[in-house]
């Protein structure tokens, strides 16, 4: 493919020079007080949760910057270096980070790679969620990787993160566990709040149309229906066909959908056209990434913002 070629070439030239450099990482349990864990998180969302569990005890680096689409992210040589030097890498897993496999192969796997979604039962967008099933959708779809849309899943994240950190940094293990526990309280509160908010929306209006399919876990937990998506896929990498767009417009009209939700990492051009053609409001939310600072600088803010937007649009 055009766009990967030059990156691979640069990468190869970098690796061959990088291999000869002396490395200073310390592995396993740290003994020196000055040696903090080098942690890499893939997305800003994962990073935020890691920060909440790890506190100030680690050096954290995020691979996919805020505002960048995690599905089509392309890593740089600097990212490879960070991964090479890392002690532990936290990734969402569930098939979200398609770039991880080649990245890890290039970096050499020295670090412990933790998929924070381990243990969460993954779901597919249920067929009954798409009553006018968008034609032509490839059925090789795996599972919806956007597990964080249900705060209860993020609770599982905290457990996985705390366990991994504790294993690598035993002295601070109790701290990590305490942080995790406290953060889970926040998540539980968030869960209750969302339920309250969702109750404000009449059943008939609880219909979600998005730029790509992200709300499976949210819809399941809080009683919404995913009517369809501009790109009927869990990833933004696909292109909708004419038939898929036609089916989506039919669905929107048929169900009297009130809003289309578009994320911050994808070009909203196509969504804009569909919205104006069907006379439906285009509502911005945050999907794959947090923002730098407000209004969605942390996971909790992110969920608050999105739920507020949904409630406003669908009430």
């Amino acid at each position, binding site marked *: 493919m*055009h*766009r990967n070629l*030059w*990156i691979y070439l640069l990468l190869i030239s970098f690796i061959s020079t990088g291999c000869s450099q002396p490395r200073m990482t310390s592995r396993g349990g740290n003994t020196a007080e000055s040696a903090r864990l080098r942690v890499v998180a893939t997305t800003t969302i994962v990073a935020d949760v890691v920060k909440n569990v790890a506190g100030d005890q680690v050096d954290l680096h995020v691979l996919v*910057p805020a*505002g*960048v*689409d995690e599905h*089509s*992210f*392309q890593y740089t040589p600097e990212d490879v270096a960070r991964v090479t030097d890392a002690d532990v890498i936290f990734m969402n897993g569930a098939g979200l980070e398609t770039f991880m496999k080649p990245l890890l192969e290039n970096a050499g796997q020295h670090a412990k790679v933790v998929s924070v979604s381990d243990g969460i039962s993954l779901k597919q967008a249920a067929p009954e969620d798409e009553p006018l099933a968008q*034609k*032509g959708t490839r059925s090789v779809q795996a599972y919806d990787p956007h597990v964080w849309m249900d705060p209860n899943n993020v609770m599982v994240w905290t457990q996985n993160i705390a366990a991994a950190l504790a294993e690598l940094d035993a002295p601070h293990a109790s701290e990590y566990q305490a942080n995790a526990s406290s953060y889970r309280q926040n998540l539980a509160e968030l869960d209750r709040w969302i339920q309250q908010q969702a109750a404000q929306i009449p059943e008939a209006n609880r219909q979600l149309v998005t730029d790509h399919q992200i709300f499976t876990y949210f819809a399941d937990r809080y009683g919404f229906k995913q009517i369809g998506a501009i790109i009927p896929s869990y990833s*933004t*990498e696909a*292109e*909708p*066909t*004419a*038939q898929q*767009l*036609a089916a989506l*417009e039919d669905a929107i009209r048929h169900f009297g959908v009130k809003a289309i939700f578009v994320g911050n*990492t*994808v*070009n909203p*051009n*196509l969504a*804009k*056209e*569909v919205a104006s*053609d069907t006379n439906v409001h285009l509502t911005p939310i945050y999907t794959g990434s947090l923002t730098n600072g407000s209004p969605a600088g942390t996971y909790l803010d992110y969920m608050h913002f999105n739920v507020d937007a949904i409630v406003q649009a669908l009430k």
Partner: protein
Amino acid sequence: MMAGVLDSILAPLQYAFMQRGMLAVLLVGIVCATVGAYMVLRGMAFFGDALAHAILPGIAIGYLIGGGAREPLFWGAMLAALISSLGIGAIAKGTKLREDTAIGIVFAGMFALGIGLISTVRSYSVDLAHFLFGDVLGVSNSDLLRMAILGGLVIGGIFLFYKEFLILSFDPLLAATLRLPARWLEYLLLLMIAVTIVIALQTVGVALMVAVLVTPAAAAYLLTRRLPLMMALAATIAAVSGIIGLYISYYANVASGAAIVLTCTAFFVLVWIGREIQKRRQVRSL
């Protein structure tokens, strides 16, 4: 049965995005094929392909500055087209390299620059695919208006300067003895090709652009011996191919740009085979 066929034809048209798409491919087909007639007659196909690729950095810069708005993309593309043409001219005239080598150098360099710039943006990278292969489903009404105005200007230019371009293409020496402002006319033609490419960007994208410029005109060239008729035929073939291509894209779930180009090519092959058959019949009847 007829009702079924009629239904299949009308069904996609109930969607506004399909209507806009149809209009877009119609407009683009007509303009591209008319300009393409000159490119076929003057052997400029490679140059046209190169120019289509060379506008990528201009689009990238327009994107970085304008954040997705259409105007900056257009001006960026024009600027890149101008720089590329001047560069090709400079290399071809200033060194002993042939023009096609100069074209290859400039085209590849500019294209790589474009890819590099777009990759630095790191968000909306899916738009690279749109620039390369087209995004006809996302055509907006303002896009259509822009296409119509610019396309009208291009066709108007061809009409107004018809005899000048004709003489320049057929007999540059006559153009010189009649003191036609040849250099300005060449620049004008270049400008018109660049505008055409920018208009067509959304329907077929950079990678496939040369096909809609050249293939319908080439088929028309085989069919007729008069230039005005050649242009009219080319425009018709392109328009029909565009529409058929969109229908194919709708019913077969195939990328629209590719479907349009394949239809153009199919037309060309049909014309070519038809001519061969006709030639053989003529030989046999002698």
